[in-house]
């Protein structure tokens, strides 16, 4: 049963609220494991969805789900040890919300019905709000407020977009279930004007959630104020879910013959995101905000890649996978840094290599990965996007693309080099480094590395299936 994927975490999440802390922790990790198991079953199509009207098993959904589930396992392990360090009083609430959040995200990944997808995405906002809220400091309140309000407004607009899509079907006198799978079948007959309008609202709505500029404004605040495990999950899984919503709609547009239009929209938003993040990564003073802007950038890259299509679409999918792994690893490292130094200021976190060598190395490796250096996967995906873009003749796009990549790299590398390699101001460590917290980010990085050395056949096929619906091919 497909729905198990979100039912299990939701039930477990509610249970964790009420369980004692220690048992709750166990249940937390056990659920993560079990979720991964169920996901694996779904991945290989062992079970079929119960209510195929609302849910279905799609390749792109499976990709998002698999990444999410994999990340969640390691993030959950990290969370347990992280929370032990910060001695949080509301740990059950945090863990429970994490599970609920996982449930909502899993729902997004398998939702097929247009409105159901909307509901699930809105649910992710609401479920993740407590995660950001958990410290109850002024800053985290502000971040939560902005997150909830901006995302809700954005997603409300997406609902409008959903209505427009339904209406585009009705104006053409079609009567099929309003799920993506059935709409794709009749896409060519949909009313183009309303479909376009629907697409715009959905891109803006889900784009708000995905962090596309200029709707990205909540993202740096939320990512920097949330506890690091939550930031990792937000960046590594939630953004992908929102992206999935946009992607589904792009598929529809493509099938309706409006692929050029939606591609251009995606590219425009993607480039805007990259430029905006470049503006704020240069001279950034807070490393978690820097990582958050980097997420905006990478979502922009994915949008550009999908927009360009062909080989670039493959690159974009690979980019999504590797970005999730590497960025979560970076956020987990950032959590370790925050524990060690007690500050998010880049200026005050000097000399990591000497004080916190494990974290320092992991953080720098993650940075190299996110900047597209081999042996990490973003190297391949960025290369593919550049190749694909030029093949598609989008020279202006690729010029801006490369320009922003260089700017961002110039901005981020200065900060990271300073953090990792400079001399520490003093040798004070708030909390010593521990393997338990150092390992999860390392494992995530190693996974990205492993996927570069050996891309499993089934993963490769899934990516190909996912992009074939927007005309993406490996040989494009």
């Amino acid at each position, binding site marked *: 049963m497909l729905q198990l994927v979100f039912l299990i975490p939701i039930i477990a999440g509610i249970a964790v609220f009420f369980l004692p802390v220690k048992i709750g922790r166990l249940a937390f990790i056990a659920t993560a494991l079990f979720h991964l198991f169920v996901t694996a079953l779904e991945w290989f199509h062992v079970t079929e969805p119960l209510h195929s009207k609302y849910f279905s098993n799609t390749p792109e959904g499976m990709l998002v789900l698999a990444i999410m589930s994999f990340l969640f396992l390691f993030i959950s392990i990290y969370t347990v040890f992280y929370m032990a360090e910060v001695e949080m009083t509301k740990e059950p609430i945090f863990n429970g919300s994490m599970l609920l959040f996982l449930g909502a995200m899993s729902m997004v990944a398998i939702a097929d019905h247009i409105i159901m997808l909307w509901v699930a995405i809105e649910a992710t906002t609401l479920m993740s709000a407590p995660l950001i809220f958990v410290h109850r400091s002024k800053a985290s309140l502000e971040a939560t*407020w*902005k997150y909830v*309000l*901006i995302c809700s*407004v*954005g997603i409300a*607009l997406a609902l409008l977009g959903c209505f427009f899509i339904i209406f585009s079907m009705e104006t053409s006198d079609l009567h099929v279930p309003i799920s993506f799978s059935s709409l794709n079948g009749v896409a060519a007959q949909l009313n183009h*004007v309303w479909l*376009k*309008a629907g697409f*715009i609202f959905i*891109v*803006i709505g889900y784009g*708000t959630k995905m962090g596309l500029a*200029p*709707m990205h*404004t*909540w993202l*740096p605040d939320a990512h920097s104020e949330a506890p690091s495990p939550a930031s990792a999950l937000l960046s590594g899984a939630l953004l992908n879910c929102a992206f999935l919503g946009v992607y589904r709609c792009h598929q529809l547009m493509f099938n309706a013959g409006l692929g050029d239009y939606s591609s251009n*929209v995606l590219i425009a938003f993607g480039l805007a995101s990259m430029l*905006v993040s*470049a*503006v*704020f990564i*240069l*001279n950034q003073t807070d490393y978690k905000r820097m990582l958050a802007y980097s997420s905006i950038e990478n979502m922009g890259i994915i949008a550009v890649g999908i927009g360009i299509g062909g080989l670039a679409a493959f690159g974009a999918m690979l980019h999504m996978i590797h970005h999730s792994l590497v960025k979560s690893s970076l956020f987990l490292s950032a959590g370790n840094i925050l524990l060690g130094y007690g500050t998010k200021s880049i200026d005050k976190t000097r000399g990591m*290599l000497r004080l916190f060598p494990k974290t320092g190395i992991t953080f720098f490796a993650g940075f*190299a990965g996110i*900047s*597209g*250096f*081999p042996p990490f996967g973003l*190297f*391949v995906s*960025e*290369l593919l996007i*550049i*190749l*694909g*873009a*030029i*093949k*598609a*003749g989008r020279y202006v796009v*690729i010029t801006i693309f*490369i320009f922003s990549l*260089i700017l961002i*790299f*110039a901005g981020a*590398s*200065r900060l990271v*080099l300073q953090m990792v*390699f*400079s*001399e520490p101001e003093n040798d004070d460590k708030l909390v010593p480094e521990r393997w338990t917290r150092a390992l999860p980010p390392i494992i995530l990085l190693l996974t990205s590395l492993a996927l*570069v050395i050996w*891309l499993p056949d089934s993963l*490769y096929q899934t990516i190909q299936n996912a992009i074939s619906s927007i005309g993406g091919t*490996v*040989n494009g």
Partner: protein
Amino acid sequence: MNTFFIALLLIGAGGLQALATFRIYSLMKTIAVSTIIGGCGVGLYDAITRIFQQVDPVVCSYEWLQMFTFSLNIDAVSAFFLVPIFAISAVAALYSFQYMHDDKRAAATANNYFFYSLLIISMALVVCASNLITFALAWELMSISSFFLVIYDVHKKSTRDAGYIYFIFTQAGALFIFAGFGFIYSYTGSFAFEAIAAIPESTKLVAFILILIGCGSKAGIMPLHVWLPYAHPAAPSHVSAVMSGVMIKMGIYGIVRFYFLMEPTSVLFGQIVISLGIISGILGVTYAIGKQDIKKMLAYSSVENIGIILLGLGIGMLGVASDNKTMAAFGFAGGLLHVFNHSIFKSLLFMGAGSVIHQAKTGASNELGGLMKTMPVTGRNLLVGAISISGLPPFNGFISEFLIYYGAIHGLSLHGASFIFSALAIIALAVIGALAGAAFTKFIGVVFLGEPRSDKAANTTEAGVLMGTALSILAASCLIIGVWPDYFVQAAFKASQAVPMISDFAPTSFMPIMTSIARTAALFLLLFILVAVLRKLLYTGKEITKSGTWGCGFTQPTVRMQYTGTSYADSMVDFFRPFIRVQKKYSGINKIFPGKTTYSSQIHDISEIGLNIFIVRPILYLISKLRWIQHGNIQLYIGYIVLAIVVMLIFI
């Protein structure tokens, strides 16, 4: 191919074991150095056999990520570039044994060896890569490993800054290369090298220019060279030797390889490359004259030599475009041979400079002087390096410059623009040659000759035996190639035969000339010895006394009166004034009885200033003006969403 892989494996093993055994410092060094040298030896043997024994090119390929093939191919060009990679790396490793001596930084040293071996491997892979993906992958590996090598002294701010600048240039360059690949791929639809020749001429030009920018930023072509004078002084000397001697040549390799693959016919290629060569060569050497930090000066001299190499390649390209086989063959062969020669003498000079800095604890030439007496081995070897790099016979630099001259002079029989470019290339080569002489007389004269200008310089002792040995090996190679150039010239011609047009070009009529040059060089050496003996005879039984230098009537000379590098360079730097920024500070004399007066002069790189004024500052300014976007005001944020909707609905 197997021998090649054994070599790479050995080198890699040497680097990896360092990470494991760094707690036993000297054991780690011994194993690392010997294994790397062993691996390089095997690789060198393999490469040399491939050049001279007409072994068929070997291809091997592996599936990678389901969609790519990872394929390697060693042909004549690859083998030609493999020789300096393995040879110089081995010598530099030998040198590093005594150079890396700080056992308090054992872990850093181990890392250094690890990335050193990774750099060698990745460079070998770059030159053997036979499709776009493999090339890109190896290229990036090379970049990142060299980055880690640069930031060995990471606790110094200057080193981190150097690493930062290098990091940006290398990544930006890589993106340009990828864009160039994009243009190739968009026409061929495959990553294979073979199909590149079929793309249309205009695309070739665009792709070539992009690759030229990307590879040029690695090679240090003039406006893109900014990182070189930062990275080379920052890196440990054996690393700067390999980077300057070999790694920047990978940029040249990229240019050569893709030119060879594209087989273009337009004259524009040659003209662009020659123009860049002239700029890099002349300005590079001028800055080398002006800079007073010995490693910075050597870095600029690398820019100059890249200029010479580009002149050779450009002449070759012009030759191809105008169907002049002699010109094409000699241009390419000269350029390639200069790649090889430069790798030898530049690594010699860098390691020598490293020994100087190691012993004197300073690299500022105005604090050095008189080291020939305290460090005779280093001094003598560097003297050889200096003569070689100035392109003077009977050493190797002259051989490659001669080939380029020969090609360029044959280009004079062309018409129109090609004639002008050939003539300009000749003039540029002549000026570069003469100015290089000026730069390196300064180098030797100020650092090794005369009197020490500071206590640091006065209290030096000779560097370690292995360091000296490494230098001597390279110095001897310089002389050997200068006096017996035949094999090396033939190898260069073999490699340049990868250009289809000159694949059947046999330099038969030229080899006698080469022999003549070699004999003239030998004659020079013979006469030199004869005259030296004669001089000895003339002095027999005569009174030879020692005394202070004649001070032209001034009776109390001090070392502070010695001509410094700055004053030596002053008039030459002034001559190039618009292209070189000189900053002078002079307190002036304003009293009847002048008190303490100060004078200082510094030169600044106009590319760097230009980069600052025209790119970095406007961007930073623009960005500072855009920071209001993230204003913190939620109402404004919702306004953005509304604005986005309105704009999108307008463009529906």
